[in-house]
């Protein structure tokens, strides 16, 4: 049992936050939408049950399921690699694979276009080598592009959530099985996999829900022939102004996410068990042997190809001149231009200012998300099977499954009018980011908190430690690593977020993503070049941020 704290007390802060910044705006928006016209009219039912809408729901499931499966297939061996082996440049690899998570969709589209577009590096190379007249690869606006982008974005979730947990699993357990006669795959299937199940299912759920509510990727990389529920909600809300239908679709999307989450928490309750977690130093070994070396090389290559090569293509394009066909010349013109406010614009922000604003929002988000996430994770880890906890657990995930179009409008309306007038407050942005980061923080913390052996706490308590001392000296060191993962998620979610930021931001305080979007929406080489340059700066900022978080000295397991 965890130290005695009343569960209601633990839930107080997180639930108040959700009530004000989630349920209230969402409820207000749904109420405003549904009262605009009678919803149970014949045309309404006909629209809702039309084959088009059924097709949309089917496609949403199909692409989300397939994307999640692919992400796991590539991510799990990667997690194993990060968990079991010690090699140079590992924390850099971990940071690099996390960068996609930060990048706004339009930037990712520009990156994929720079790499695989009709005039991207790959097509140009193939055309030259094979002497072709037309680009051989069509990648943009295909189903493949959607799947690739989803894997690109979500790989880091599996690598971090599963990898970090795996890295602390006692390898002696599977060694013991081997000694007792199990072969390698038996030991993995019967011992390691069941122990990993809570972390895998947590990661899979997050990836699935992210893909299920996918919007930007579908719109920009998939193109007009693909539509998920979220895209349909956007279409009904903005293009057709059919708010009642949009509201009902939002509710459907929400209910499906809720059902998935409930299923997961049922599963998770059965799967989790206390474990002896070990310091990662005790578990990780250097890469030895031909087979291992081959595997490691292959998988590091694969992870980097998927996550970094598109971004590298974008970064390369930011330092080459567009002029002069064929011959590509190095230039820093776009970077120089970024620092000039030629038009004396009020909303201009130099890259350093925009970076400062982005970092300020991200830091606030980390503080808020951890502050709210800790008590919630604590309460959940105490007793996952309690009916109240199971319900609340599912509730925490709701913001991720909610239509961002609906919630965004609700945020704007509900929080900009009395009794809660925050419309001019720059704090709305970290608050909105916290809503997204919160479930990640809780998901990262719960498995670690749950795996703490109750005996340790009991022993500490028996030796006269107060509950606070137990937390300080037993729990915190044990979950240090998980807290870092949680902080990294909150940081990356905030620093690259565009949708909510563009809705809520004061134009005087542009972030890196909002500045990039402004530049991207204008014609002209200098504007496009600056957008690429600033995207590269965003990339570097996020790598720097993630490396800095990794470097924070938090007591590792086993150091007490």
């Amino acid at each position, binding site marked *: 049992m965890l130290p005695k704290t009343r569960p209601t007390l633990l839930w107080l802060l997180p639930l108040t936050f959700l009530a004000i910044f989630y349920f209230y705006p969402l409820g207000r928006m749904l109420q405003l939408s549904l009262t605009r016209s009678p919803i149970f009219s014949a045309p309404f039912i006909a629209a809702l049950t039309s084959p088009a809408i059924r097709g949309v729901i089917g496609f949403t499931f199909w692409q989300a399921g397939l994307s999640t499966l692919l992400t796991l297939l590539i991510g799990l061996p990667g997690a194993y690699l990060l968990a079991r082996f010690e090699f140079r440049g590992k924390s850099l690899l971990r940071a690099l694979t996390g960068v996609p998570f930060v990048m706004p969709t339009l930037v990712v589209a520009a990156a994929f276009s720079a790499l695989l577009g009709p005039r991207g590096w790959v097509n140009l190379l193939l055309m030259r080598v094979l002497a072709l007249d037309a680009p051989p690869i069509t990648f943009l606006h295909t189903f493949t592009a959607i799947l690739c982008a989803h894997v690109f974005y979500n790989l880091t979730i599996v690598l971090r959530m599963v990898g970090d947990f795996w890295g602390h699993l006692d390898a002696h357990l599977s060694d013991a099985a081997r000694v007792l006669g199990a072969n390698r795959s038996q030991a993995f299937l019967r011992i390691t996999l069941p122990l990993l199940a809570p972390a895998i299912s947590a990661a899979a759920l997050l990836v699935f829900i992210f893909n299920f509510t996918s919007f930007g990727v579908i719109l920009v990389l998939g193109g007009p022939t693909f539509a998920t529920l979220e895209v349909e909600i956007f279409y009904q809300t903005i293009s057709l102004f059919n708010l009642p239908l949009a509201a009902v679709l939002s509710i459907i999307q929400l209910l499906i996410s809720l059902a998935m989450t409930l299923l997961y928490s049922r599963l998770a309750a059965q799967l989790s068990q206390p474990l002896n977690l070990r310091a990662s130093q005790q578990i990780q070994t250097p890469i030895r042997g031909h087979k291992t070396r081959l595997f490691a090389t292959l998988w590091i290559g694969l992870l980097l190809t998927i996550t970094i090569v598109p971004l590298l293509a974008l970064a390369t394009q930011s330092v080459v001149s567009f002029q002069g066909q064929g011959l590509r010349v190095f230039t820093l013109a776009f970077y120089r231009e970024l620092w000039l406010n030629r038009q*004396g614009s009020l909303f201009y922000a130099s890259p350093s200012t925009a970076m400062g604003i982005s970092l300020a929002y991200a830091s606030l988000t980390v503080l*808020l998300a951890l502050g709210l996430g800790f008590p919630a994770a604590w309460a959940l880890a105490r007793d996952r099977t309690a009916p109240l906890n199971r319900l609340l657990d599912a509730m925490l995930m709701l913001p991720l499954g909610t239509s961002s179009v609906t919630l965004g409008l609700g945020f704007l309306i509900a929080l900009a009018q009395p009794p809660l007038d925050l419309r001019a407050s720059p704090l709305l942005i970290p608050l909105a980011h916290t809503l997204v980061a919160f479930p990640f923080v809780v998901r990262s913390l719960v498995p670690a908190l749950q795996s703490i052996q109750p005996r340790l706490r009991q022993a500490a308590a028996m030796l006269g430690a107060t509950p606070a001392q137990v937390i300080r000296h037993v729990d915190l060191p044990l979950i240090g690593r998980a807290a870092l993962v949680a902080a990294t998620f909150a940081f990356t979610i905030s620093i690259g977020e565009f949708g909510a930021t*563009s809705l809520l931001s004061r134009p005087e305080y542009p972030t890196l993503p909002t500045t990039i979007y402004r530049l991207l929406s204008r014609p002209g080489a200098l*504007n496009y070049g600056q957008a690429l340059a600033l995207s590269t700066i965003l990339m570097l900022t996020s790598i720097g941020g993630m490396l800095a978080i990794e470097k924070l000295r938090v007591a590792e397991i086993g150091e007490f």
Partner: protein
Amino acid sequence: MKHNFYLLLILAALLAACVPEKGPQTLTVMTHDSFAISEELVLAFETEHKVDVQFVGAGDTGTAVNKAILAGDKPLADVFYGVDNTFLSRALEAGIFESYASPLLADIPDEFELDPEQRALPVDYGDVCLNYEIAYFEQNNLAPPETLEDLLKPEYRGLMVVENPATSSPGLAFLFATVGHFGEDGYLDFWRGLVDNDVKVVNDWESAYYSEFSQWGGTYPIVVSYGSSPVFEYLFAEEPLDAPPTAAVIGAGSCFRQIEFVGILRGTEQRQLAEKWIDFMLSPEFQADIPLQMYVFPVNANTQLDETFEQYLYTPDAPASLAPENISARREQWIADWTAMVLR
């Protein structure tokens, strides 16, 4: 340590509750995310009227309009700038604006004044037109298209990329151009012809222009963009150019004019200041600031434009015209019919 942490949280919450007030009074201006203005102009306005002008962003045009409508009789700002003629009907029907007959309307040509009750006042316009890459047509000894009808010819097969009207505002404007030009009975036949001629459809302007247009990363030499895109290609080229590398098609009825409006939000408590702000936006000083800040063009006839614009801005003599009432009544239907014809 933990206690300090929560203290910080509470502090942050308190900070959120009290928004600092600067000037003696505040005028709140809600805008879409393409809005931009010179710093010195705002400062001059603030000094002259002893007011602190606060801008609130609200996403793109469609989102901003929805937001203003859903706020109902408790307006989120005093003034809203950014509703365009494709969304105007939605805003006017919802009654979000108060009428204001600004004296400066006298300097604005009647063609821009779409609301006879002067609830929404025109500020700027931009023409959505087809653009093409000049070099492509020169290298291939092909004459560039001059009208919409040309696009159905076999020599232009597979050369054009357009934006989805359901998700993109230039895409919607181009759909309106075809409805205006071919009529409600004819536009779908034209689109069927375009589909047969292998038109490419993407969801957003950025993808169309920067990923598919041959001037940039793509292979399609014709794209739906703005009559002003060529001059901005010229002005914002990497190295100075002799002339724009692209051109616009401005044949009869091939472009659609987007006009953006400003209005006083119903229920404001700053009516006087809001009027002053609107006069300011319609004044030649602000109007001259528009092109290089927002990439659209002033409606006030007394505005002096830069010489480069006189030279390279493509302005259609006869943009396709559609009555706002017609747009209002049929908009959703056209989008739905277009979607069924082109995408499904």
